[in-house]
């Protein structure tokens, strides 16, 4: 039977609701309202984990989100498992399982504990220094280092929970529902500000709610009694929304904050089902009030990390709030009055307090007197020089501190104990404040960084503003709230506040021991096992910047981000380097304040919602006919249509042959379509395309090439003149949005005088491309009335007509070199049109083909694909497309750049055709091209951009960019591959039907 350390009933613990849970496989009991930490402490379990580097036994240190040691794996081995969870934040529920991390085979007996005895060999920078030689061995070292690194285990199956995002807008956001936050929220809401109050814990009231210092009074009541009434009143206030279990993770510019709302983590498994687990609140607040409180600091002394050593505020909270005694022989170690509150709390419940060790010479405050009256032994001017107890603290050794605090003298006294409450003063939680971009200043007297210069409309109140006493808190809140909310009175103007006035403190960042520093272990960062001597070593080795020392020693780089020890690290650096802390500054506080789950970050954007995709109106047909799809931009495009188990190669060969021999059909709906209207539309096209547009007749189509201002090819497509002032431009599938953006940019910012309007109509039309020698016959069957003769409807022209009742636009244009038509109808008729074409083409063995066949067919013709054969460094001249660049036009986008010395170089990479000497070898796209084989290093001339086996030519063909390729026609080059060198010959990039005879076939 384990010891029960539950000492009194607490109103926050429901002792009628007994809960069983498992820790490291053993069943324990706690009550509704317990955290995993409080329940374990009630069962006298302190040892919960092992430290990261030395595998030292570690216990619960705190009662909140700053916990560095008690991080556990929740529900191990299930798909809901979560590593690195702070036991101090887990609310227990029936069936909860948790286990220790970073230990093997168990937390009680951990093989890695040997590191502790080897620690003299693991100084800061150990890995950097040791695993450098020989350099080639890194891969071998890495295997072992990776194996032993990391905390906890990530889940291996998919997360069954639902996560959510929500946008929230409010007038006033109050972060933290301690006494300050509650006062602020109440006043804001009562003054008609839409107010949101968020609190990371499940209860409102912060630490004041269990305040027991009889010398503090509000309105002649105890602060906790007074605050409970205030909290009760909040329920009836309109305009106020309260969110508990909600932790603000990030505070960005312009009062944009991210908060995680925890909805089901405290529920039993059966109650979690089909509920949202966590929700990310994206909050845009007009005004922000930070009431984030303060974190108690530990003291840095030799062996200050043993299970049983805790913050004094945590000892007090476990006693007052959870009704749990953390030990039966308690000692407090302090540099200020806070520990005396904890000592009295235990004393009043009949729990044994052995002594208080105070590094100050004395204190005259009322609470200290009260402790003296209670007969608790106080050792003034003493410091702890060592502790004993491997898995649980069992004694401390103390010695007298010298006047300057740098050494200890006199006899060593050993006091036996099982719990030590450490109080090193308070650090305002300014993490969110600095994340917002606001600046801190160092207060030399209080030894804290305080809010100084705000960047957005925000205030910091309460202890996060360095106000630790009730009268300071009240006075500053009243003043700041009135200013921010522009009000004259608050609810709290006439409230009388009393508190203990004395508040002395003696600050020593690193406490001395009777041993030399090198023989001690004063931990500064508990989770990462960084000690004061590591920090001093870093300084000796020449590190000066706090950011560098942090990274070298890993201080503050654990999952707790050094919430406890960072100030001490700064203090030790400042003392050692002889600089002021204000000049040293702090490391950057980065979001998130506490770790977020991946689920919270991605919200609903998982599975098919991970990335948006677009489908054409004919998509269902492609699916029904077993098409394989490829992603083009956001589009899902039919890639090829395998039949009877064909491979991709077989399907593409069949489709390509059919399209040239009889008829092929392609879904071209994804091509970008921009409707261009206005009296200056022709002039506009003249300026954005390289060729001339003014003389294009109505009803005619023209291919255009668009450059960037640097002269490089940006996009291409066919544009049709529908009317005097009306064009429709087609763009590449992937480039549509960018082209529209670029055109708008020029229109709005460079040529606002032009009367032109642009509208994206890509989604409004479905496009069917019919190609092949029988395409004309098929179209004739669908639209018998339309005169399809070359005279009436020649290549590169357009007709507006009807198919039945459906209006359609038909362009006779070709991307395959075959006689072909692009039929555009309203998107909703797309599938219908496709099926009509399939039916009409049945007798001609019409063959649907996908993007792969389209690419092959155009490569046979030497037509480029922007983005495949170009890469942002190709001019039209490089592409051997001089014919499309107007010499007459005065200006167009990119024209001037074509005459820069660099773009006019003869030895630029230029587009050429490549033929392999063995026509059966298909080159790999991306393969490098060289002219000499036995050269070291070999000069790379270029690379293959497109490569296929052409069924129509019965040989492999390729397009490539080759340095100076234009003048290399017929030259023999090599494509070196891993296992062989392929002989190739430079050729004309137009491989098929060079005279374009098939267009009119």
């Amino acid at each position, binding site marked *: 039977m384990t010891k029960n350390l539950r000492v009194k009933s607490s109103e926050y613990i429901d002792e009628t609701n007994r809960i069983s849970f498992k820790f490291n496989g053993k069943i324990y009991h706690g009550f509704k309202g317990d955290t995993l930490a409080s329940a374990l402490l009630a069962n006298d379990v302190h040892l919960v984990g092992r430290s990261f580097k030395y595998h030292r036994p570690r216990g619960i240190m705190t009662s909140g989100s700053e916990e560095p040691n008690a991080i556990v794996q929740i529900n191990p081995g299930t798909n809901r498992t979560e590593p690195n969870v702070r036991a101090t934040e887990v609310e227990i529920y029936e069936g909860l399982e948790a286990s220790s991390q970073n230990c093997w085979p168990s937390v009680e007996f951990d093989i890695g504990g040997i590191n502790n005895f080897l620690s003299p060999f693991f100084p800061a920078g150990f890995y950097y220094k040791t695993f450098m030689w020989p350099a080639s061995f890194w891969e071998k070292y890495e295997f072992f280092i990776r194996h032993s690194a990391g905390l906890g285990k990530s889940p291996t199956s998919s997360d069954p929970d639902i996560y959510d995002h929500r946008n929230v807008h409010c007038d006033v956001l109050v972060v933290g529902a301690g006494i300050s936050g509650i006062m602020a929220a109440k006043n804001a809401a009562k003054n008609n500000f839409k107010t949101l109050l968020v609190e990371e814990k499940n209860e409102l009231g912060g630490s004041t709610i269990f305040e027991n210092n009889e010398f503090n009074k509000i309105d002649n009541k105890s602060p906790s009694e007074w605050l409970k009434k205030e909290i009760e009143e909040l329920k009836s206030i309109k305009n106020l929304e309260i969110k508990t279990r909600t932790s603000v993770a990030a505070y960005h510019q*312009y009062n944009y904050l991210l908060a995680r709302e925890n909805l089901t983590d405290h529920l039993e498994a059966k109650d979690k089902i089909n509920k949202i687990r966590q929700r990310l609140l994206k909050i845009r607040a007009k005004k922000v009030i930070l009431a984030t409180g303060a974190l108690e600091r530990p003291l840095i002394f030799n062996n200050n990390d043993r299970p049983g050593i805790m913050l004094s505020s945590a000892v007090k909270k476990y006693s007052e709030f959870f009704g749990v005694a953390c030990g039966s022989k308690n000692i407090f170690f302090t540099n200020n009055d806070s520990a005396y509150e904890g000592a009295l709390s235990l004393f009043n419940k009949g729990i044994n307090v052995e002594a208080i060790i105070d590094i100050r010479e004395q204190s005259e405050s009322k609470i200290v007197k009260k402790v003296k009256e209670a007969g608790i032994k106080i050792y003034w001017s003493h410091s702890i020089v060592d502790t004993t107890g491997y898995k649980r603290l069992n004694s401390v050794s103390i010695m007298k501190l010298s006047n300057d605090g740098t050494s200890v003298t006199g006899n060593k006294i050993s006091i036996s104990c099982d719990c030590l409450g450490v109080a090193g003063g308070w650090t305002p939680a300014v993490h969110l404040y600095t994340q917002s*971009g606001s600046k801190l200043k160092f207060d030399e007297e209080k030894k804290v960084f305080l809010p100084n210069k705000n*960047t957005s409309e925000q205030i910091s109140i309460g202890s996060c503003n360095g106000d630790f006493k009730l009268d300071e808190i009240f006075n500053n809140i009243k003043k700041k709230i009135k200013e921010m909310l522009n009000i004259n009175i608050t609810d709290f103007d006439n409230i009388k506040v009393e508190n203990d006035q004395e508040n002395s403190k003696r600050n020593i960042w690193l406490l001395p021991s009777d041993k030399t520093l090198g023989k001690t272990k004063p931990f500064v960062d508990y989770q990462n096992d960084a000690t004061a001597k590591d920090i001093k070593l870093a300084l000796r080795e020449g590190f000066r910047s706090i950011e560098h020392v942090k990274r070298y020693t890993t201080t503050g780089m654990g999952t707790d981000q050094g919430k406890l020890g960072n100030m001490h690290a700064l203090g030790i650096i400042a003392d050692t380097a002889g600089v002021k802390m204000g000049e040293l500054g702090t490391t950057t506080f980065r979001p998130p304040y506490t770790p977020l789950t991946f689920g919270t970050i991605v919200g609903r954007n998982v599975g098919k919602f991970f990335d948006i995709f677009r489908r054409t109106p004919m998509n269902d047909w492609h699916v029904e006919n077993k098409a394989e799809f490829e992603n083009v931009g956001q589009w899902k495009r039919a890639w090829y249509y395998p039949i009877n188990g064909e491979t991709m190669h077989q399907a593409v060969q069949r489709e390509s042959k059919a399209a040239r021999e009889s008829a092929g059909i392609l879904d071209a709906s994804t091509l970008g379509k921009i409707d261009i209207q206005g009296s200056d539309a022709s002039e506009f096209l003249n300026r954005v395309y390289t060729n001339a547009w003014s003389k294009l007749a109505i009803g005619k189509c023209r291919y255009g090439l668009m450059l960037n201002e640097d002269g490089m090819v940006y996009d291409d497509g066919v544009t049709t003149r529908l009317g005097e002032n009306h064009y429709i431009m087609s763009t590449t599938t992937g480039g549509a949005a960018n082209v529209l953006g670029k055109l*708008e940019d020029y229109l709005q*910012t460079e040529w*606002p005088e032009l009367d032109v309007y642009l509208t994206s109509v890509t989604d409004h039309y479905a496009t069917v491309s019919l190609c092949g020698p029988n395409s004309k016959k098929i179209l004739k069957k669908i639209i018998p009335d339309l005169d399809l003769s070359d005279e009436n409807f020649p290549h590169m022209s357009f007709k507006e007509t009807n198919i039945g009742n459906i209006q359609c636009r038909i362009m006779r244009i070709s991307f395959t070199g075959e006689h072909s038509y692009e039929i555009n109808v309203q998107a909703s008729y797309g599938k219908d049109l496709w099926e009509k074409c399939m039916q009409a083409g049945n007798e001609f063995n019409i063959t649907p083909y996908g993007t792969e066949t389209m690419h092959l067919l155009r490569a046979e013709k030497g037509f480029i694909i922007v983005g495949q054969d170009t890469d942002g460094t190709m001019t039209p001249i490089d592409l051997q497309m001089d014919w499309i660049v107007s010499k007459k036009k005065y*200006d167009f986008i990119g024209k*001037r750049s074509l005459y820069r010395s660099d773009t006019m170089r003869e030895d630029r990479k230029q587009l050429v055709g490549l033929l392999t000497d063995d026509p059966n070898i298909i080159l790999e796209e991306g393969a490098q091209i060289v002219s000499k084989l036995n050269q070291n290093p070999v000069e790379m001339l270029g690379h293959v951009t497109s490569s296929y086996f052409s069924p129509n030519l019965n040989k492999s063909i390729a397009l490539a960019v080759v340095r100076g390729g234009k003048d290399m026609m017929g030259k023999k080059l090599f494509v070196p591959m891993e296992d062989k060198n392929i002989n190739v010959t430079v050729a004309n990039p137009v491989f098929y039907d060079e005279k374009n005879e098939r267009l009119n076939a």
Partner: protein
Amino acid sequence: MFLINCPYCGERDQQEFKAGGEAHIERPKQPTELSDDEWAEYLFMRKNIKGVQFERWNHAHGCRKWFNMVRDTSSDEIKAIYKMGEKPPSQ
């Protein structure tokens, strides 16, 4: 995440906008008359100021309008927003 006051739509979240680089660089009216150096100055040279900078922004996922912004790049404070073609505020 900035809160940007689009001159046409009002205050909107930054994710609706696209930054478009330095403002008030006019495209030369007669590019062919420029030397390579002069053209390169227009084409490539951009300031990257720590402090007050004049920028172009586009309400890409909104009204698609371009406008100008004066922003302090060290504090991200937006000092002014004005339409294309309008004169920048003097100070």
